[in-house]
């Protein structure tokens, strides 16, 4: 089946689990990545059981720091 990952079309196996996509896409620290599917956030407790569907639009949103200290104590 075809899905969209970060804006790019990908051919993946039918019934691919979200956790399997983490591995395929080499997602770093997936437990701290927010996932949206078809513009809806996947609640963290549902990540484990989420199975992808044909045409799903998947986005990975990563924590990014950077810049300068604001509260370093």
């Amino acid at each position, binding site marked *: 089946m075809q899905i969209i990952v970060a804006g790019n079309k990908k051919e993946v196996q039918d019934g691919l689990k979200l956790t399997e996509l983490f591995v395929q896409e080499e997602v770093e620290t997936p437990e701290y990545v927010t996932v949206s599917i078809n513009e809806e956030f996947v609640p963290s407790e549902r990540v484990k059981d989420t199975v992808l569907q044909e045409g799903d639009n998947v986005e990975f949103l990563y924590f*990014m720091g950077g810049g300068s200290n604001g509260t370093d104590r």
Partner: protein
Amino acid sequence: MALTDDQMERYSRHIILKEVGAKGQKKLLDAKVLVIGAGGLGSPAAMYLAAAGVGTIGIADADEVDLSNLQRQIIHGTADLGKAKVKSAKETINAMNPDVTVHTYRQFVTSENILELIQDYDFIIDGTDNFPAKFLINDACVMAKKPFSHAGIIRFKGQLMTYVPGEGPCYRCIFKNPPPKDAVPTCKQAGVIGAMGGVIGSLQAMEAIKYILGVGKLLTGYLLTYDAIEQEFHKVKLPSHTENCAVCGDHPTITELIDYEQEVCTDGLK
């Protein structure tokens, strides 16, 4: 007050734009923007705001200029080593544009001071490097109904989004809680390509300027990501309504500001 001859000349490339004009330039001169963190993001952001004639710029940072900052924090120079970043930043801005009044706050933002810091400003730029600060700025801006630009940079990647009160999701809608300390890499551990601050910090300045002018589309409801290795920008559409967000949702459970750092250190907050 009418623009002076010098101002007409200085801002001529703005004034000729139909979206700006003399009227828009006056809006910029009357505007107040607070930049929190005078580092990789805050340097270009503050400098473009200053050059654009944003009349009042606040700079908040408690640090001093360190040699390892200079690869990306372009508001500071070699002669500024050891100087307070806010002082160095103010000197650079003063040298760039005498139209700008610079207020400096040599302090880290905390739950105690942030509401007072942001209250007089029209727009806030988050140029901080750590998650306790990012969540604090988000929550304070949501509570005080202030628009702000979030950004982050790491390695060859960057991201930003804009929060406008009542319009679209806040930072906490995406990321519910800060990650435990050291769970995700920081610039110090992982590195960052210097020009990334220039790309993303300039985009933050662009968001502030567009907000002040009331021109075009802002990154509200979107997270813009940039990958320098692939040389690709990607605009991620975010859910429009997040009724269950702990701070900006319909029934907020976070009603007081949180200083996360201690909690992360003591009990490894998830």
